[in-house]
């Protein structure tokens, strides 16, 4: 019973580490939130067309990204305004559609906060396959993405297809959201991306260390979140996030203490 859950958690964590780094570096937290909000509409679309939830979510995520990129190119409104409009539109449409389709409130609750018994064996295949392919693609794009994160014009001048890379990064985020949503829940999915990576940032000196560190942190929190959620009977999402924030605070305190002692040490020399 627990094994599919464990495998899923590890696959998700491996992808969430490096992807989360880009969310932090490129300030895409609000975008991740928007994408998560659109996932509910994806579930509804999946129900209507009769395909799996995950495919419905990825489809809606792609539409979401295309609409955002298109609207942004019109230069009429700021990106965060556009995201606010799109995200809440998608969430509201999703809730309305779910109600019309007769989905029960309890199930809606599971989508919002994640649930323990959400992982089934056939979903496991999707998640592991999706995360594996995504991780492979992300590793190929890694140097170019890093370069365009430092400067888009510079990356373009050196031949990186910046627009394509940006779209692929959004697509990868869409895949992760679709894969993780039933575990972590729509409301908390962004924290799975940014808290572990931010924790790793506290000690990382190279981008790759931060990515791998983020994965390790995410894995620890998800694996710890399972028994934690079971023990006190809360939804899985909040259990995982509570653990990851605790870990973040602990590493932050350690970091600040080390900094203070090392600067004292320097002064006394």
């Amino acid at each position, binding site marked *: 019973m627990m094994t599919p859950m464990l495998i899923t958690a590890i696959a998700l964590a491996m992808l969430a580490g490096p992807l989360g780094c880009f969310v*932090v570096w490129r300030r895409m937290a609000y975008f991740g939130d928007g994408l998560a909000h659109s996932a509910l509409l994806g579930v509804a679309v999946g129900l209507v067309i009769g395909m799996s939830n995950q495919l419905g979510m990825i489809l809606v995520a792609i539409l979401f990204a295309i609409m955002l990129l298109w609207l942004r190119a019109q230069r009429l409104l700021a990106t965060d305004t556009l995201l606010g409009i799109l995200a809440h539109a998608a969430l509201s449409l999703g809730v309305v559609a779910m109600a019309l389709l007769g989905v029960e409130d309890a199930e809606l609750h599971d989508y919002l906060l994640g649930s323990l018994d959400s992982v089934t064996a056939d979903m496991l295949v999707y998640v592991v396959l999706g995360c594996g392919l995504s991780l492979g693609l992300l590793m190929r794009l890694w*140097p170019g993405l*890093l370069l365009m994160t430092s400067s888009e014009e510079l990356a373009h001048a050196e031949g990186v297809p910046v627009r394509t890379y940006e779209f692929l990064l959004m697509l990868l985020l869409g895949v992760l959201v679709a894969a993780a949503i039933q575990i972590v829940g729509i409301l908390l999915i962004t924290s799975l991306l940014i808290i572990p990576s931010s924790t790793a940032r506290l000690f990382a000196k190279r981008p790759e260390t931060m990515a791998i560190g983020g994965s390790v942190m995410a894995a620890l929190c998800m694996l710890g979140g399972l028994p934690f959620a079971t023990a006190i009977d809360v939804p899985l999402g909040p259990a995982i996030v509570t653990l990851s924030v605790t870990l973040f605070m602990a590493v932050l305190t350690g970091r600040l203490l080390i900094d203070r002692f090392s600067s004292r040490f320097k002064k006394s020399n």
Partner: protein
Amino acid sequence: MSEPLIEARDLCVRRQGGLVLDNVSLTLGERDFITLIGPNGAGKSVLLRHLLKFESPNSGTVKHRHAIRIGYVPERFQIDPTLPLPVRRFLTLNNNQSADAVEALAAEANCEGLLDKPLANLSGGELQRVLLARALSSDPHVLMLDEPAQNLDVSGQLQFYQLIDELYEKRNLSVLMVSHDLHMVMSSTRQVVCLYHHICCSGAPDSVARDPEFVQMFGAEMAQMMAVYQHSHAHDHTHDHDHAHLHEIKP
């Protein structure tokens, strides 16, 4: 004459109703050294982004010579402090530079001592030299710089422009640079192009300094100062873009 490296024809770019670039044509050939000047908001950076083909114009064309390599030093480079990126790693991103090649590049751009520092902690002058090293890493045909010295103090500016001059003399490349530092630009003898949405004038600094449009834009004082500096005799400012090389390297 060999095929130009970058050729822009009749570029028009419209933003919020106004024309930012109005029929701008510019040709960069081999071993050219062109400095682009103009007041704030004249469209210099926009022109550069179009010459890079980073943006597409409303009308007009930009042609790059086949397989051209461009080294670019952007105007604004603000790396997010959450990205832990040592200079050495930055210089090897997305290219396959060996450790020795990185050391050589750093030496050429005068930033050997910075290789193990995080990119986000560099001062303005240090960052410019690192960006220059990055721009050189592809062994470019063209070095394109957008106001590379704007955050430097006067001695830093002087050193940076000298560094660019040295690179131009040593390497087989062309330079296209946007600059705000009129006194530096106008005291050199390189080709100057003055832009204010359209190309106002171009040529050697002494002829540009006497152009009525230049005088109107930068004040009669500047023009007078140039006249004293360079006491040139001929008054033949041309409105077409001749590419007379004042610094032709002899074979």
